[in-house]
């Protein structure tokens, strides 16, 4: 039985040789590690694009890794990896606020600078939170835009990514709060999950449309949900009669926005979010960004306001037929 053993060893040796020669010599560039909620989500991929640009401008090395589907346990593992690797900055979009904070505090203890972006961690486990918009702001913008589209009265339904994702629950909470506060003539009739699958979102939306004949709008707060719901509305022949809007990426929704099926897609410039995060992270590492600062200048994007420890990107942005072609992510 020497053959299998020899084969294992030979394969291992080849792999070893190729990988060692391929790995670069130790360099003295700053290393910034960026953790998305889920690597496959186009939203975070577009954040990465901005982050890559910033990393190149600043001459730092960017590590970008995350779970393939949102998973708090895996996020922790990856942060632990980075700690033992000794990176200089860690920027996280936390799937679970408390869970990730233990690992982040450990990182801070070892002198690694920690930032949060997109979804915050506990206040004492990171120096700053790069906030694209508060969940409250997002929820309100969503609800206000929805109300505007239906004339402030009527039934609407919501499609979420998953029933367990923390930030989705937060947005939903603020949408419902805004609904109660300002739009008494509107009613939320159903909330259905789509498991972040476009096809399932389509099936759910089809069922929603048929179960609620008085439905006037579908709000999808996960990015695969918007094109899925739009396709359902289109196939049901209700384009224009039932409005579609939600949180999503311009590229996935362009064709629906142009054909009038989807009215608004709300987001923020995710590339800018990534860009700002990297700039802030590097500034932290170089001790240029300190606690108590009131503003921060990030490369070509200009100045940003800082409120307490929140670095604000700005208000959510509404993409519609008029401007969606200007964006490519």
């Amino acid at each position, binding site marked *: 039985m020497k053959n299998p053993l020899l084969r294992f060893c030979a394969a291992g040796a080849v792999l070893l040789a190729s990988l060692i020669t391929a790995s670069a010599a130790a360099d003295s560039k700053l290393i910034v590690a960026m953790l998305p909620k889920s690597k496959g989500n186009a939203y975070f991929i577009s954040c990465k694009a901005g982050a890559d640009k910033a990393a190149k401008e600043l001459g730092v090395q960017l590590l970008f890794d995350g779970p393939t589907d949102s998973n708090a346990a895996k996020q922790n593992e990856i942060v632990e*990896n980075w700690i033992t690797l000794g990176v200089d900055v860690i920027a996280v979009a936390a799937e679970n606020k408390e869970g990730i904070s233990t690992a982040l505090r450990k990182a801070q203890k070892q002198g690694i600078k920690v930032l949060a972006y997109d979804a915050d961690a506990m206040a004492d486990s990171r120096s700053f939170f790069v906030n694209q918009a508060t969940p409250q702001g997002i929820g309100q913008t969503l609800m206000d835009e929805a109300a505007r589209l239906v004339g402030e009265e009527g039934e609407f339904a919501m499609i979420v990514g998953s029933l367990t994702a923390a930030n989705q629950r937060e947005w939903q909470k603020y949408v419902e709060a805004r609904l109660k506060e300002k739009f008494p003539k509107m009613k939320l009739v159903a909330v259905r999950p789509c498991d972040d699958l476009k096809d399932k979102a389509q099936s759910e939306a089809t069922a929603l449309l048929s179960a609620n004949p008085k439905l006037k709008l579908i709000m999808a707060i996960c990015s695969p949900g918007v094109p899925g719901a739009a396709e359902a509305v289109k196939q049901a022949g209700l384009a224009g009669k039932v409005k579609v809007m939600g949180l999503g990426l311009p590229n996935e929704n362009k064709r629906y926005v142009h054909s009038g099926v989807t009215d608004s897609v709300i987001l923020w410039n995710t590339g800018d979010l990534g860009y700002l995060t990297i700039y802030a992270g590097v500034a932290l590492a170089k001790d240029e960004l300190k606690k108590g600062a009131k503003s921060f200048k990030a490369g070509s994007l200009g100045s940003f306001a800082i409120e307490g420890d929140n670095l604000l990107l700005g208000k959510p942005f509404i993409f519609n037929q008029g401007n969606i072609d200007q964006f490519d992510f």
Partner: protein
Amino acid sequence: MSTTSQAPAISEAARGDWRALLTRHEMLLLYVLIAEWVFFYIAGTSTNRRGVVVGFGTWDRQFDILRHSCEIGLLALALTPVIITAGIDLSVGSLLGLCAILFGKLWHDGGLPIPVAMGLTLGIGALAGALNAILITALRLPPLIVTLGTYSLFRGLAEAITRGSITYTDFPENFLFIGQERWLGLPTQAWIFISVALAVGILLHRTTFGRAFRTIGLAPEGARYAGLPVERRLALVYVLAGLIAAIAAIIYTARLGQAKADAGTGYELFAITAVVLGGTSIFGGTGTIAGTLLGVAAIAVLKNGLACLPVVMRLNAAEEMSGLLTGALLLVALTASVLPKILSKLRPRRHTTIRTIPPLSP
């Protein structure tokens, strides 16, 4: 393996052969594990910009590997007796999730002290295992389909009870100690893992129960005729699996500091891979705890070692590569395990005849 008169002598030789083959599988796995470890040590350790040695070759990292592999390791331990009886349990990952949130609920909503909540959770795990056991033994239903159903059911119950989104957090410090701190030099959960491994190992290799499991896996009807209480033994393995899944749930919750309905998603696949990698035959009848432990170690080292390689980090592909390689490793291991059978079939008959002549000297 031909005439009945030669049967005793041949089965003796065959059994000797089998034992040698088995040891060889685990030895092979051990070589692979060592080779992996050495490879990642060399390629994955370096000195970072602060002059600190980081990467695979640090104590911190090794302890992290140990810490992270406890839950999957426990599930693999739970599955080993099940697979030895030629059964399978796909529901252990979902049961981990259900037990985790029930533990959180008992403590948080029920106001029970942590030890009581833990005890009740273990009871629930055993009960859930009993559900599988009853369906499999009393109704003689195939384990694959029963546990496929409970895989959905347990996860569904977890999501329904938490309405999908409730997460239990803010556990007290001395509970989190189990998952996040070290005790007497090793991560705390490692001690729990070692105890369970010892217990299951003793059960499998030193008691009559273990022999019963193997016999049931090889020939359930024969076992019944030989007077073994087959149903009771089968029920035991599934209840045990449920109990161990509950222990894993508690450790998971302590490690992460949160109890959420999606806990343990996908763990059963890694656990089964570890068990099969370790030499336990999915057809039942053979298997060792040592093999399972080696299998868990091999996968854990692979997953964590890959994440330490600079090349993988640059590609941002640690997650995919470890999944890919684990799948590939499983295929290779499976193929390698049947290779001797195929090779021997390809050899000309003459050699086969010679091999069946029992040795002259004892």
